[in-house]
Structure formats: C-alpha cells, structure tokens
C-alpha cells in the first residue's frame, strides 16, 4: 500500500512514462550544458568587446594626443598668435573709423562695433595676463598693446558720439599700433619652431 492514488496506469504505460521522464531529464542536462557553453561564449564575447572598447579608447586617446601634440603651445607661436589677434582688432577699429569718416557706415553701427572691439580687447588682455606659456617680457609687451588699443577704442567711441575732430589723430595712432604688432608677429613667426 502506498500513499499514491491508483491512477489506473499499466506497467507498460509506467515504463513509457519513466523513460519519457528520463529523456526529459537528459534533455534538461543537455540544455544546461549548452547554456553553460553559451554563457562561456558570451563571456568570451564580452571580453572581446571589452578589448575592442579598450582599443577604441586607446585610438581616441592616441588621436587626441596627436592633435594635442600638433597644437602644443610653442611660446613664439603663441606670441605670434596673440600679436595677430591684437593687430586684427586694431585693423578692425581702423577700418570702422575710416568707414565712419567717409560716411560708409552709420554712427550707431560704428559706436556699437567699437564698443564690442573694446570688450574683446579687454578679454584678450585678461587672456594674455593669465597665459602660463607666454614668456614674462612678451606678456608685458602684449598686455601694454592691448591696454593702449583699449584706450584708443574708448577715444574713438567718444569721437563717434561727441567729438568727431579727434578721430584722425586716433586713427593715426592706431596705424602705429597696427604696424608695431605686425612687426612683433612677424618676428615671433620667424623664431617659431
């Protein structure tokens, strides 16, 4: 007597059921083994992906380093660049002043542009003073130029708004600044690596 109820299963059926259960058990084992293999492959795949990811990171870093190396600051190059930037602003002031005197541009445009250039010169002055790659003497020279240009810009703005007579004198002084900055840029360019 057992606790199992009588299900009305014959011996032959019971053998079939048992063998089917055994097949299922084997299949389960097979699936487990397959799953383990797949898991291992996935791990391998993940590690391959890791390697690829690392390789990509290395490539990106190498590219960035290459660009960084190309862009590495050479003091002479930086002097040239700063001098050119200041000369560019000086030339802008000059052209705006000339255009305003000729009546080619309206006063409000001239006034606004001169103010914007003055602001840009102020920022440029800060950049020069805070630069760690510029040699001290070059920093001082460039900073002086920036300051003089800023003062000239203020004077020009006043000329546009209230005192047109002083504009020619300011433009003359601008020309001198421009020339001096161009010379500085050229000299630094010749010495650059």
């Amino acid at each position, binding site marked *: 007597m057992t606790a199992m109820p009588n299900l009305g299963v014959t011996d032959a059926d019971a053998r079939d059921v048992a063998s089917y259960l055994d097949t299922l058990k084997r299949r389960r084992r097979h699936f487990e083994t397959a799953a383990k293999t797949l898991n291992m492959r996935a791990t391998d795949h993940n590690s391959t992906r890791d390697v690829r990811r690392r390789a990509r990171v290395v490539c990106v870093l190498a590219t960035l380093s290459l*660009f960084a190396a190309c862009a590495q600051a050479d003091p002479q190059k930086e002097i040239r660049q700063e001098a*050119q930037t200041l000369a560019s602003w000086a030339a802008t002031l000059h052209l705006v002043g000339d255009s305003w005197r000729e009546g*080619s541009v309206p006063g*409000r*445009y001239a006034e606004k542009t001169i103010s*914007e250039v003055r602001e840009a010169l102020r920022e440029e002055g800060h950049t020069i003073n805070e630069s760690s790659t510029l040699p001290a003497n070059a920093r001082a020279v460039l900073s002086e130029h920036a300051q003089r240009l800023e003062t000239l810009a203020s004077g020009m703005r006043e000329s546009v708004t209230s005192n047109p007579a002083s504009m020619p004198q300011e433009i003359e002084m601008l020309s001198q600044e421009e020339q001096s900055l161009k010379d500085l840029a050229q000299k630094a*360019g010749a010495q650059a690596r």
Partner: protein
Amino acid sequence: MKKAIEIALGIVTSVGGFLEIGSITTAAQAGALFQFRLVWAIILGGVCITFLVEQSGRLSAVSGHTVPDAIRERFGFNYFLFLLVVLAAVTLLVLGAEIGGVCVALEMATGVSFQWWAIPVAFMMWLIIWKGTFSVIEDGTAILGLVTLCFIVGAIVMHPPWKQVAVGALPTLPAHDRLRYWFIAVSILGASVSPYLMFFYSSGAIEDDWKEDYINVNRVIAVSGMSFGTCISVAVLVLAAMVFLPRGIQVEHYSQLALILRDAFGRWGFWLFISSLFVACLGAAMEITLQLSYMVAQGFGWNWSKNQRPKDEARFSLTYTVFIILGALLVVVGIDPLKLTIFSMALTAATLPVAIVPFLFLMNDEEYVEEHTNGWIGNVAVIAIITLAFVLAVVTIPLEIFGGG
C-alpha cells in the same frame, strides 16, 4: 512654358537658399585667414550637395516619398527615431544660428542688441509660416535672396587675381595654422552639405507635386541652383581675401563682416550686406523650421503640408511653433551667434553619415526609384560623400577642440 518658369523659380530658390549664415561666415573666415586656399572646400561641398539634392529630388519625384519618409519605411521606425533625434538636435542649433543671423543684421542696422530682436524675429517667422503657402515662403524668400548676388558683383568689382583663385580650387596646405585651416575646411563642408537642405528639397518636390516627368527639371534645378550658390560662397571668400586679409583682420565677430562690401560698393556696401544677411538667414531659418517639422510629421504619420490650413494639420503647426520658440530661446539667452554658427556647422559635419548612409540604399532600391536608380557615377559620388562624411565625423570634435580657435 510652365516647366521653364518652374526651372527658373527652382534655380532662384536654390541660389537664394544656398547662402545662409554658415556659408557666409565660414567662407569669410577662410578668405580672411587663408586667402584663396580654401576655395576647394567650397567647391567640394557644392559638388557633394548637388549630387545629394538631385538624388533626393529624383527619389521624391519617382516614389512620391520624401527622404525621411522613405528612410522610416525602409529602415524601420527605430532608425528613423535615432536619425530624428540626432538631426533635430544639430539642426536646432543651426536654426538658432540663423535666427541669430537675422537678429545680428537688425542689430547692425539699428544699434539695438541682437537678443532684443529674437522674439520679434521669431514672431515674424511664425506669422509668415502660419499665413503663407509653401510657394509664398519658398519663392518669396528666394526672390528676395537674389540680393546676395551682390557678393558676386562685389568680387568682380574688386578685380581679384583670378589665376590664384583658380589655383585655390586645388587643396594646398598653408605654412601656418594648419589645425585652424582644417577646422575651417570642415566647417565649410558642414555648412554646404547640410542634410536639412536635401530633406527640405525632397519635401518641396512633394509640396510642388513633382512626378516622374520632373526628373530632368529636377536635374537642371539641382545642378544650376547649387552651382550658382557655390559661386556666391566663393565670391564671399574672394571678397574676404581682398578686403580683410591685406589689413590683417581675422573674422571673429559678426560686426566685422558688415565691412566686406565696403571697398566694392562704398556706402551702399554696408546696406547691401545687411540686406543679404537678413534675407539669407530669414529664408534659411524658415526652411530649417519647416524641414524640422516636416521630418517630425512625416516620421509620425501626421498631416503635413504648407499648402493646407493650420487647423487641418494642427500637430504640424504646433511642431513648427515649438521649434521656432526653441530656436529663438538660444538667441534670447545671449549665445554668441558667431560661435553658435561655427559650432553647429562643425557638428553638422559630424552627423552627416547618419543621414547619408541610408540614402545610398534608397537610391539603389527599385521599389522606390524604379528604373531611375543611381548609375555608377551617382553611386561613386554618394560612396565618396559617405567616406568624406565618416572622415569628417571622426576629425570634427578633435578639430573643434584644438583648431576651433
């Protein structure tokens, strides 16, 4: 006769639509710093966009699909969504730059800061799009855009050394500032090969009800329009090389650009430049707004057409309203329009592969273009553009960091 008028209008539209804030700025910077050395970049960009625009027009005329619509159908919604997110993000920045360009033109004319103009300009754009039909918007801004031909006249008046300009059509490296040179080259390509331009062109073909018999019309418009547009960009570069370079002016602020036509036209030069900047940027801003909205509507299967009343396509109308507000906000917060332009042009270059790769498949799929699939020249051109796009995508960000100045 009808087709001749359409061709003429199409060319005018392409000419007017080609020049925008990005092409003006990048060409002027190139000329001011590297004289004629970057003419090749403008020509290369012009050739690339000519191929893409011709093919997108052909796709629409034959299949009745716009490019975004066909991409969604052929590559599935997930890819479309990815494309939409990437392009919408970048194109929104370009929209901000174009609205900024309109505002800067008004600032130069009035002396009132550009931020103050952002909301009135946005409202004006919205009103034109809301009230106007597609032809009014497209042809109106294009005809006004003919004022940009003053750059070509200006360049001729300045008597540049044409031989040197022609030599600039072949790439040569400068002795100095090579990173900056490459950064500007990439920005020029980003400004010329804009996915929005080809997507807008294909939507326009559907709006104008082009059919298969428009294939030749499309070809003439694409080739002539883009060639004239390229000539205007080259003219801007030539003018900058003649006016700014000898004086040592590097273009770092929009206000400097206003003097580009001064030597050629005297007191008229200033106003011609302001008008050109205003019209070119306004036209481009409206095209970009419409393109962004077309793309969203086409992707989500909404009604879309500028020839219908807003109440018949409420979601489309809401979409362009939102995009205009977002674009204007970028200007209101005071982001420097010049920096925004250069940044967005470089980013456009970086995202090109996402938009152009699917195009190659579409143009070779007979289900879409029937017997008008690409020939070997078209395929070689698109493969070359894709290769270029991948190179641009890889180098743009490092160049942005180290060469963006």
